[in-house]
């Protein structure tokens, strides 16, 4: 059998629906006259499983899984990793240092000139910090940098 897109998405959705149902086990469903906190989520889980089955049944109309283009993962992967690192460091390092590192890392990944990348990253981070804290009165984290 040739695996198609909707075989994967349908299967994943059925699994997701069942997992969320299991996670909802401790939520009271209540009665129809007094619905509990679990009624709506469980109803939605049933719908997700139902739509997952509908996708599986019509999967032959979807493109072959092998035709999905994944070339852009070489761009998406590093961007996700760099942004995740920035999110992890933000509370400790603060806005200016984290954003300088984020911009610099992304530009290095794009093979820009290192000096130009450094100047751009520092300039943009400091200017944005000033814009938000001074002009827009929206405080951003100082972190390690005593500004």
């Amino acid at each position, binding site marked *: 059998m040739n695996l198609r897109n909707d075989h994967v998405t349908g299967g994943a959705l059925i699994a997701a629906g069942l997992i969320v149902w299991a996670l909802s086990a401790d939520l009271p469903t209540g009665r129809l006259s007094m619905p509990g906190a679990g009624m709506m989520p469980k109803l939605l889980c049933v719908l997700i499983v139902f739509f*997952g089955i509908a996708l599986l049944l019509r999967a032959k109309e979807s493109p072959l899984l092998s035709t999905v283009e994944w070339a852009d993962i070489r761009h998406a992967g590093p961007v996700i990793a760099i942004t995740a690192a920035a999110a992890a460091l933000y509370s400790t390092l603060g806005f200016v240092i984290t954003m300088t590192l984020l911009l610099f890392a992304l530009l290095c990944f794009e093979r820009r000139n290192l000096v130009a990348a450094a100047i751009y990253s520092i300039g943009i981070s400091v200017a944005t910090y000033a814009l938000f804290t001074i002009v827009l009165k929206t405080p951003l984290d100082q972190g390690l940098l005593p500004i």
Partner: protein
Amino acid sequence: MESTLDSLLLGFSVALRPDVLWYAFLGCIVGTLVGVLPGIGPLSGISILLPVTFGLDATKAIVMLAGIYYGSQYGGSTTSILMRIPGEAASVMTCIDGYAMAQKGRAGAALCIAAVGSWIAGTFGVLMLTLIAPPLATFALRFGPPEYTALLVLGLIFLAYMSSTSLPRTLLMATIGLLLGTIGIDSMTGHFRYSFDIAELGDGLGIVPVAVGLFGLGEILSTPSADVVGRVMTPKLRELLPSWAEWRESAFPIARGSVLGFLIGLTPGSAHIISSFLSYALERRLSRHPEQFGKGAVAGVAGPESANNSASTGAFVPMLALGLPTGPVVAVLMAALLVHGVPPGPQLVSEHPDIFWGFIASMYVGNVMLLALNLPLVGLFVNVLRIPYVYLYPLVIMFCVIGVYAVNNSIIDVWIMLIMGVFGYLLRKFNFDPAPLVLGLVISPTFEMSLRQSLVMSNGNWTIFFQRPISAVLLAISVSLLLLSAVSMLRQRKDWRTKLAEAEAGEPSP
């Protein structure tokens, strides 16, 4: 009518205050830039700038954010005409004949027709909004929980019906959005749902991290920098005036696009995108020279551009009058009003007339501003495209992080944005539209509350939805739409939605 005029005068007294004018101007400028830049849509633009409005009062905040929304519709046409790159999705149809006109040396005329058409349609949309929203809000005061439940069901079904992806895919996305909306404390019983001992999740998933992740970051992840190449063509000011024949050819398409766009704007879904497609199809059908479409037909620019602007304004009617978001952008605008303690809906007109009418009046002013800005400054806006994408997208990521973090000063929100970005990237790969998910997330609390309240007030009798006339009619319309979709699916017919999907993907439609 007299009271409407009095209220509108009150609105103008608010909208013409220098401080409100300044924020309308700022919104229009930012919106035009957002529309010009590929990869940043109005949704990410508004979401990123939402925290900036926290220090403002509700009127200035909504005036600025709405300026970004309709400004982006104006700006989107610029790159479509000059570079054949739609700055945002609603400008896809303008690419076809707009760029063909530019190739013939009529870029200036195409830009002028697009701007004037947008202005006329935008003003028409606001005029209709002025006339329709207040009586609709008065009518909606009769709505109780069963009517709201039925209205939201109809909204979701209509969204699925109008969607260019299939019915199950759209409803599935909306269901996932509804499910994500249940995360947090249950407001009726106080139970924590799916918060996994993370305190921040107790308040539920914010719309901003989800929207910025799905649309802002998701778009960047799917767009490798090597794929973005741009040659910038800058028309001179004296080339902007269309000829008399071009004006004549554009008059009726602008009028038709304005009416069609407004009507479609009232319905849930990506109305501004659908309206531009339908307007293009309508103009080609009505044209005496359909063979000119695709080769620089003036009507192919005037119609879709007018329709998408009118639709953007039409989308405010259900939001302001019923508190019902018809698309993700309007949902974020609703969230902005809620952040300022102003719930949109039937009570908005009576309880906050200064905000309601000030907002409407500011749209009249904003449309004039955009016309005045867009034509003389087109060269300036186009120059923004000279910034290489490799320098631009890291900047957008930085603004995504700031925008999301600043809403609650919560790094958890940044993680949610990142997860949603990856999810949005995967959804694109598997041909799912993320817009219904955002819509489901926004309406989830209202939907759940009204459904449960209806069941409680009827002592568990679910036929309450059919016993009350308004909800019965709304549900009957929902069932009819489902049946229409089912018939279309069973016959495997290629209807306008399939053609829209093909047009969005850039495939020809026989």
